[in-house]
C-alpha cells in the first residue's frame, strides 16, 4: 500500500485467526490490522461469523488457530475481565435488578472505586451519552429502548476500555431513532477518541459511521476498505450486492475476444476484468447509473426491455424493467422524465465507466 508510512500503528492485530466448532468453520483465517482510534465496522449476513470474530476479540471465545495481539502482545487466552476492551451486547445485557446509576457504576464498583467517585463518574458519563441526571436512580428496565442503549454505552465507557466492541446494538431499534443513534455514536467516537469495532448486518449502518468497513462472508473477510472503496470498488459480486440494490449482468468472452452478456441480447462495450484469464465475469451497474435512453440517444452498453412496474422512492422513481428473462432496476430523479407507461418498450443504457466488473 502506498499510504503505509502515514498509516497509524495497529492497536489490534489478527493473524490467521480461525475458529471451528466441531466440523463447522465459523471464522476462517482472518488477517486484519485495526488502527488506533478508528471506527471499523465488520459487515456480513447472519451466519457469516462476525459475532464469533467479535467474541474472540472480546475474549469470550478462544481462537482455534492464529494470533490476536493487542499493542503487539498476544491476548488469545486473556479472559475478558483482564482485557482493556469492552463489548456492548446485542441484547445490551443490562443488569435488570440494578438502577441506571448502578449499571453504569458496575465496572468501577468491581474495581473497588469508592462510592462518591463512582457516582461522579457515572453522572459525567450520563452527560456524555445524553441521559438526564435524574435517571441515576431509575430502574433500568423502565427506560425506553434508546435510553437503554445509552446506559449500555455509558457502562462500557465507565470501564474505560481502549477498544469498544459493538454487537449490533441498534438492531432492535426503530428506524428513525436508529438514524439518530448512529450519528450520536459516530460523534461519541470522535469525542472519546477510542477505537470502535462495530458489527452489523446492515451495510447502510456501516456506511454512516465507519472509517473502514470489513465485509465478511462464510467466515472469511472478503474485503476491507473505506466506505468509498467498498461502494466504488467492490472486491466481488457478493460485496457489490451487499452494498445495495444492483443490476448484475453475467458476461462472457466470446470467440472474437469481445465481452457480451450471457442470455441477454444487446450491444456491449465492457472493460475486461483484471483477471485476464477469466472467461466469465459479472458486470455490476447501480440502478442510478442505468439510464432510460431517449430516441436516438446512445450509450456504451444498450439493452431493450419492457417496463414492468414503477416504485416511488421519495426523491427518485425506480422502474423494474424486464430484459429477456432478466430483471433490471433503473432509478431516475422524480420529474426528470415524462411519465412512463407500464408495459412500454424502453431502451436501457449504461456507460463502461459506470459499471464495475467483478469476479464471482
Amino acid at each position, binding site marked *: 500500500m502506498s499510504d503505509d508510512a502515514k498509516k497509524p500503528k495497529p492497536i489490534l492485530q489478527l493473524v490467521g485467526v480461525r475458529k471451528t466448532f466441531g466440523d463447522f468453520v465459523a471464522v476462517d483465517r482472518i488477517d486484519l490490522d485495526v488502527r488506533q482510534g478508528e471506527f471499523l465496522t465488520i459487515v456480513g449476513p447472519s451466519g457469516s461469523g462476525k459475532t464469533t470474530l467479535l467474541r474472540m476479540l*472480546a*475474549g*469470550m471465545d478462544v481462537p482455534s488457530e492464529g494470533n490476536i495481539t493487542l499493542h503487539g502482545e498476544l491476548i488469545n487466552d486473556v*479472559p*475478558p*475481565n483482564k482485557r482493556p*476492551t*469492552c*463489548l456492548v*451486547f446485542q*441484547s445490551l*445485557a443490562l*443488569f*435488570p*435488578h440494578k438502577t441506571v446509576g448502578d449499571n453504569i457504576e*458496575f*465496572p468501577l*464498583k*468491581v*474495581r473497588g472505586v469508592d462510592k462518591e467517585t463512582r457516582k461522579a463518574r457515572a453522572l459525567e458519563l450520563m452527560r456524555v451519552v445524553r441521559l438526564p441526571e435524574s435517571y441515576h436512580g431509575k*430502574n433500568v*428496565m*423502565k427506560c425506553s429502548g434508546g435510553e437503554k442503549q445509552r446506559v449500555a454505552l455509558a*457502562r*462500557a465507557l*465507565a*470501564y474505560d476500555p481502549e477498544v469498544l466492541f459493538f454487537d449490533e446494538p441498534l438492531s432492535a431499534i426503530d428506524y428513525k431513532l436508529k438514524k439518530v443513534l448512529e450519528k450520536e455514536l459516530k460523534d461519541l467516537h470522535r469525542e472519546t477518541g477510542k477505537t470502535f469495532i462495530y458489527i452489523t448486518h446492515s451495510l447502510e449502518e456501516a456506511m454512516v459511521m465507519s472509517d473502514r468497513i470489513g465485509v465478511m462472508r462464510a467466515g472469511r473477510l472478503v474485503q476491507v476498505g473505506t466506505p468509498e472503496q467498498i461502494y466504488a470498488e467492490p472486491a466481488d459480486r457478493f460485496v457489490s450486492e451487499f452494498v445495495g440494490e444492483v443490476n448484475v449482468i453475467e458476461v462472457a468472452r466470446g470467440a472474437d475476444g469481445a465481452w457480451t452478456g450471457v442470455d441477454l441480447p444487446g450491444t456491449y462495450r465492457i472493460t475486461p476484468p483484471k483477471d485476464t484469464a477469466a472467461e466469465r465475469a459479472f458486470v455490476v451497474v447501480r440502478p442510478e447509473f442505468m439510464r432510460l435512453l431517449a430516441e436516438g440517444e446512445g450509450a456504451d452498453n444498450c439493452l431493450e426491455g419492457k417496463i414492468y412496474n414503477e416504485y416511488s422512492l421519495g426523491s427518485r422513481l425506480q422502474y423494474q424493467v424486464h430484459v429477456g428473462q432478466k430483471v433490471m432496476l433503473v432509478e431516475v430523479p422524480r420529474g426528470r422524465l415524462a411519465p412512463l407507461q407500464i408495459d412500454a418498450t424502453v431502451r436501457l443504457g449504461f456507460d463502461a465507466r459506470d459499471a464495475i466488473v467483478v469476479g464471482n
Partner: protein
Amino acid sequence: MAFRLPTAGTRSAIPVGLLLLLGFAAPLVAIVAYSFATPRSFDVFTSFTLENYAGIFDVENTVWLSFLWSGLFALATVVLLAIFAYPIAYGLNRVFGRWSSLVSILFVFPLFVSENVRLYGWVLFFIKNGVLDGSLKAFGFEGGPDVLFTPGMILAGMLYTYLPFMLFPMTLGLAMVPGDLIDAARDLGAGRFQIWREIELPLAMPGILIGMLLTFVLGIGAIAEAKILGGQSVIVIAHDIEIAFTYSQNWPLGSALAVVITGFIAVLTLAVFGRLDLDRLLGRR
C-alpha cells in the same frame, strides 16, 4: 328470561370450586372452630373458649419444646439444603450439559418411593445388627456407629427427603439468569466471586427463596423423620398434633396447635412473597 346460564368459565370452575370448598375450606373452618371448643370435648360450634390457646401459651406447658424442635429442624434443613443444592443447581445449569436431564431424573427418582418406605429403609440400614452394623461385624470390624434415634439422624433424613424441593426451584432460579449478563459482568472486569454476588445470586433469588420457603414449610410440618428415624427421642409439633387427635382424643387442643402453626407459616409465606417482587426480579417492569 330471569335465569341466565353462567358463562363457560364459571361453569368450568364449578367442579374444582366444589372440591376446594369441601376438601380445603370446610376442614379449615372445622379446625378453627374446634380450636375454640371446650377442651377434651367434641362440642364444636356449640361452645366457645380460649382455654386451648391459653394452655399452649402457658409457660408451664412444654409444648414450646416441640415448636422449638420443629423450628430448629426446619431452619437447619433450609440452611444446609441451600448450601448443598446450590452447587448441584449450578451444575445442572452450566456444567453437566446434556447429562443434566439424567442427573435431574436421578434426583427425582426417590420421590417415586413412599417416604415411609424410604425412611424404614434407612432404619434397616443403620439399626443394630442391620445392614451396616451387621455387615461390618461379619467382616470382623467393631460394628456400625450408633446414630439411629438421634436428632442428627432426623436432620439427615429431612435433608435427604426435601433435597428435590430445594434443588428444582433453585435450578429454575439459576436458569433465569441470562448468560449474556454473566458474560457482560466478566467483560466489565468482574471476577468470579463478584459475578456471583452482584449478578447471579440476586437474579436467582426468586427461585432460591421459593425453594427455601418450600423446604421450611415442609420441614416445620415434618413428622415421619422424627417418628421413624428419631424413634420418638424428639417430639416435633406435628407429632404433638397427631397425639392430640389420636391417643388423647383432645381435638380442640390439636386444632389449636394446628391453627398456631398454620398462622405462623402463613405470616412467613406472606412476608417472603411480599419481599419477593417477582415482576421486578424478572425485569418485567
